[in-house]
């Protein structure tokens, strides 16, 4: 087990390194630099040159890479060229909104998904089943940003029930955070809920046809208990795979959702850093995202250990 964890950890580090190197060179091959974001729209060539010199943007790439990499090894991700604060600080600031959004969206996806999936499986073949599957289909097919825009139009602008944009920090009260996250979490989690619902339904149907379930039924156990205790636990394993994948898909959806709802999170920071050519932040953010992703994958894999005694890692 320890050997397994060690191997996973090392491979995570290797991936982070590879990803960091690739991003370093890719972003520098894109024309433009941070001066266009720092100066006004019609800045003179002289101003641009002066700024470029002040920021050491003219140094050859290997020198820049050596400087940056040296810092990373020591745990120093450098400073943002646009914001002039340490990259770690910039990332840390933006971590809470993204984490809360991802958490809320996952909650929506899991509860909605498993709930709908169970209902559909239990009412297999009826209108309810059909309706749930149609809704799930729609969830898979609607673009997240479109759903988000429509929700803003309806709930924020027309009905004025919810705030149109922004984020309430936890330090200002959990209630406020929830209010700001309702629409983004639903917009983001809806498509994943669809995936989870379909998977839950499918594997639950499988499990319900199993021998041990028929045995339980023939013993006279109430159907609800049969479903919940016996079938569901077995059915959850593949669902867990899907949830793990969902979190990955969620990471991508976070970027678009943060843009539409103006949530000051890490996803939007990455987009802004690309637009501004803020290399240090982009490099640091990409490495951080890769690390988080790998960690989540590891957690999902470890959770299999808890759920299925047949699984072993060496």
């Amino acid at each position, binding site marked *: 087990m320890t050997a397994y964890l060690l191997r996973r950890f090392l491979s995570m580090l290797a991936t982070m390194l590879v990803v960091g190197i690739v991003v370093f060179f890719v972003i520098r091959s*894109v*024309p*433009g*630099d*941070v*001066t*266009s*974001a*720092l*100066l*006004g*729209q*019609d*800045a*003179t*060539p*002289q101003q*641009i040159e*002066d*700024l470029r010199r*002040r920021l050491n943007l003219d140094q050859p790439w290997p020198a820049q890479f050596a400087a940056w990499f040296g810092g990373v090894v020591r745990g120093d991700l450098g400073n*943002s060229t*646009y*914001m*002039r*604060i340490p990259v770690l600080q*910039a990332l840390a*600031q*933006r971590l809470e909104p993204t984490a809360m959004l991802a958490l809320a969206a996952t909650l929506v996806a899991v509860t909605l998904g498993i709930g709908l999936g169970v209902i559909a499986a239990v009412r297999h073949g009826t209108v309810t089943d059909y309706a749930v599957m149609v809704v799930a289909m729609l969830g898979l097919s609607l673009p997240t940003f479109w759903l988000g*825009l429509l929700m*803003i*139009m309806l709930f*924020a*602008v027309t009905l*004025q029930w919810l*705030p*149109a*944009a*922004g984020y309430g920090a936890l330090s200002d009260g959990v209630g406020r955070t929830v209010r700001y996250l309702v629409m983004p979490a639903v917009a983001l989690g809806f498509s994943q809920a669809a995936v989870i619902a379909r998977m839950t339904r499918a594997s639950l149907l499988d499990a319900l046809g199993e021998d041990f379930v028929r045995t339980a039924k023939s013993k006279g156990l109430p159907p609800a208990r049969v479903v919940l205790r016996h079938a569901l636990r077995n059915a959850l394993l593949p669902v867990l795979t899907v949830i793990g994948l969902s979190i990955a898909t969620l990471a991508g959806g976070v970027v678009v959702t943060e*843009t*539409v*709802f*103006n949530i*000051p999170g890490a996803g*939007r*920071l990455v987009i*802004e850093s690309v*637009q*501004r*050519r803020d290399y240090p932040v982009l490099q640091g953010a990409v490495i951080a995202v890769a690390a988080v992703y790998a960690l989540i994958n590891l957690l999902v894999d470890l959770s299999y250990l808890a759920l299925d005694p047949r699984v072993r890692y060496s």
Partner: protein
Amino acid sequence: MVRHTTKRSAGILAVAILVLASLFGLAFAQGGAAAPGTPVSGGTLRVAITGDPPTLDPHTSTAVIVLEIASHVSEYLYARDAGGTVTPMLAAALPTISADGLTYTIPVREGVVFHDGSSLDAGDVVDSLDRWRRLGFGKGVLAGATIAAADDHTVVITLPAPVGILTGVLGWTEGAAVIYSSEQIAAIGDSPNDAPIGTGPYRLAEWTRGQEVVLERFDGYVGLTDAPSGDAGAKNAYLDTIRFIAVSDAATRQAGLESGEYDVNYRAAASDLEYMNASDSMYAWLMRPGYNYIALINHASPVMQDLKLRQAIQAAIDVYPLMLGAFGDDAVFALTPTIVPAEYGPMANTTAGAELYDQHDAVKAMQLLSESNYDGQTIRWITSRDFDYQYRGTLIAVDQTDAIGLTSEIIVRDWATTVATRADPTAWDIFIGNFTIAPEPEMISYLNPTYLNGYTGSDEYAALLAELKTTADPDRRVAIWSDAQAAFYEDAGAIQMANTFLVNGYASDVHVEARYFLFQAWNTWKE
């Protein structure tokens, strides 16, 4: 019985009159956006801005958002009133200029205090102008000059050659000649000043990068007592706090204004103008003058050096539909041949050369094209969808020039790439966009040979511009510029299209005493 009734009637009448009087009073006090009311002190103004500003230091960046936020915190020697006239702000009076135009004596206003409590003196002005010269626009106008403090409240600038616009630049927000204290300049050197200590009515309370800038009223503000006008006069800080919140998405900014999340949508879309003005809960304000929307021509490109070709393009452009398509509502632009708009007052109101403006004459254009050396080369128009009015205008301009026989290619990239491409003289031919205008032609980038499009102009134009630069007398300047503008049109140095205005959306409970073309939150209150 009769007596009681009379008394009661009288009583009722009295109450009725009282109620009516109060209602009348209320009706007068209640105002819409324009009606005067009694300013209320207090409250927080939430302004949704287009993104995190790169700095709060105008010396290092003249991005409009930097200037607009920083102007609450830092002030200038001079300011402009609503008519465009330069008036004293931190200076005590207009400068005394020597007969040869080489020496400027500027008195500094007494009693002005910085946010840290220290007093403003000539030394602070000298150090600030010096820094401005090292880092900003001052590099041009103060090149080779000596700046010194004659005494505690007098600054003397000695120029190597006359500079016609010096006073004007010192009183022009985009000129960015803000005044900091010597102590702070010594402490930060040439790094951007992100915690500016200025003399303005508000001070920086907090700046959370990527999220918001929070300003708080500076109780020790020592301002002027003249009536507010434009950028000048009294700056009443009614609001306790101003929060500039970064909301990069335009649709989200508007939705936030409509749902009450924000009080001001800084940079609303033209397409929302009508809706906002028809609504009870908000109104729109047009910031005029805003920018000049032009087609910038790359004079380093061989194909664009052909005069007849440029004149052909100039003749082909049909400005009104182009502007309408680019901006969406004709309330946000004004077709005008004057390069320096009328709102800037006395300097340049000339319509010389106007017969070459907005000709939309396809026949003449094709004639000119046939007289040129144009041989079917592909004209490269660069643009970015990050500024959708640039992109749409380019689409329409290409459509109009296609009609007269030009072959074009539109290169669409993100803004950073477009800026980089524009800096490469071999990579583009025409760029359409908004350009900052100013009260003086020397301050307008594309009129001058030092700008990136390499325009030196015809001999006639170059000579007139050179003469303008050393002339300070206002009437003489108007005459010279008039001829120069005509020469500019003849030469098709750039293709002038229209004056464009920015749209700010305000919640109805926000009132502003005096307006300027840049965003100001002083002289502003919330009900």
